[in-house]
């Protein structure tokens, strides 16, 4: 039995299995017992329902990104649940997936044993779990940061799977929170330097540019400035007029 546990822990699929189980369990629990939070009740839940109903004007707001409306809206559409439960579900799922990059980063920096302890600490930490149960966007941002950090640690000599990881992280950072754009941009620059501007770097740059376009369009609609986040619009207008 002990040997079996040890060989399971050594398997690269073990943490994937743990991440999948934690994500699905957290998502199911949060959908069944969502915690009430004003932010989700007044913003993300109605936005998700509006997205599911195809009411685009009500579905998006530049201050809150496009990610939560789309993710929550798809959950409303797919599972036929209300907006609040849908936001809790996707948020909890994202929180659960965070186990995987935490494990991989800890394994890279220290060793596999530390990685397992990091995964355990991540799962038992209540603060992040509460945010997830409330259907907030923070678990997505945390997942984006962790994915990008892991991609940075493994980008030298890695293949296109590493690019996929970075692309997912960048997408999350660019679309879920407006303060994630600068952080995502900094990660992208660091990735380019570590990758020595090879093909993946340019692919990631193209992907990043593509990923911010929905937000740029949304901010342009509201402020008249083609920017990935609305808080810079006043500075943009001050510099370029308008």
């Amino acid at each position, binding site marked *: 039995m002990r040997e079996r546990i040890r060989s399971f822990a050594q398997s690269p699929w073990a943490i994937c299995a743990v991440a999948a189980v934690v994500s699905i369990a957290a998502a199911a629990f949060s959908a069944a017992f969502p915690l009430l939070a004003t932010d989700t009740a007044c913003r993300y839940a109605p936005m998700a329902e509006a997205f599911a109903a195809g009411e685009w004007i009500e579905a998006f707001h530049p201050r809150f990104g496009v990610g939560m409306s789309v993710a929550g809206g798809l959950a409303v559409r797919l599972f036929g649940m209300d907006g609040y439960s849908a936001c809790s579900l996707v948020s909890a799922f994202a929180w659960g997936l965070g186990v995987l990059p935490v494990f991989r980063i800890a394994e890279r920096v*220290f060793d596999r044993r*530390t990685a397992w302890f*990091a995964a355990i600490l*991540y799962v038992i930490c209540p603060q992040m779990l509460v945010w997830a*149960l409330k259907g907030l966007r*923070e678990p997505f941002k945390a997942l984006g940061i962790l994915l990008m950090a892991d991609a940075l*640690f493994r980008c030298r000599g890695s293949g296109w799977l590493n690019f996929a990881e970075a692309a997912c992280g960048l997408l999350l950072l660019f679309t879920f929170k407006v303060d994630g754009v600068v*952080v995502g941009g900094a990660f992208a620059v660091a990735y380019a330097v570590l990758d020595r501007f090879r093909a993946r770097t340019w692919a990631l740059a193209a992907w990043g540019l593509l990923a911010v376009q929905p937000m740029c369009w949304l901010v342009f609609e509201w402020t008249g400035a083609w920017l990935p986040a609305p808080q810079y619009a006043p500075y943009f207008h001050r510099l370029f007029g308008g």
Partner: protein
Amino acid sequence: MDALFAWLFRRPVPLSLAGAHFLPFALLAWVVILGRAVTGRFSRREWALFAVFAVCYALETVQLMAAGFGFLGDDTYGLPRYFGVLAPILWIWAAWSLASVWSAASGGWRTFLCRAAVVAAIAWIAISQNYGQVEPAYSRGAIPDVHVACSKAARIISRDYAGPERQEKPRRVLQEYYSSRRPVVFSDFGAVAWMLRGQSEGAQQSSGYCPYPDDYLFIRVGSGYGTIETVDARQYDYMGTVKGLGTEWRLFRRKTTPHR
């Protein structure tokens, strides 16, 4: 004291520090980081990981200071959880310390003691922290009290309201999201309107940006949102008192709100 905390939490730097206080993980992590850095045991990868943490923290703080969500107003707005997303990076050092204790002793009862200590620490953290944070959110404390009060108010409002389900002229506000759903309820706890399931919206009156007049007011007695005395009797009808688990709330209807 509340005013001091309110002021501090509107300043980016103390706000960012509040985000780092994910005890007990963060405390353990900072001890390990300082210990390893001072004794020169920090590896290059650890420095790289710490750089990721520090740069993300700095960028978040600078954004709050420079951009400051300035379109919201003159003041900076932020929450500790904006920084809390970086906490899992810190926990990796906490995990290293646990892993080190786990494999510290070699053989015999010392190994058993070390591993028992680690298991006990993890179990204590899991139970005490989750019991302290998650469980009360469901069974007692502030949120369930509000939950109970708001559920009751939502039932009363849904029976009372007889107006349209949508605003006739939807308006957009850059500072805050407002859907066009009705009735609009201004409350200490904005989620009350969500409980009206697809017919309403909880608006945060304190932000002052809501483009629609409120249909109902739902105020907790003796709390910060507004005082009962300030409710203008010429504009609102008092509908009654609603009790949560431990708090008392007052429900008002605007005189112009269509009702049964």
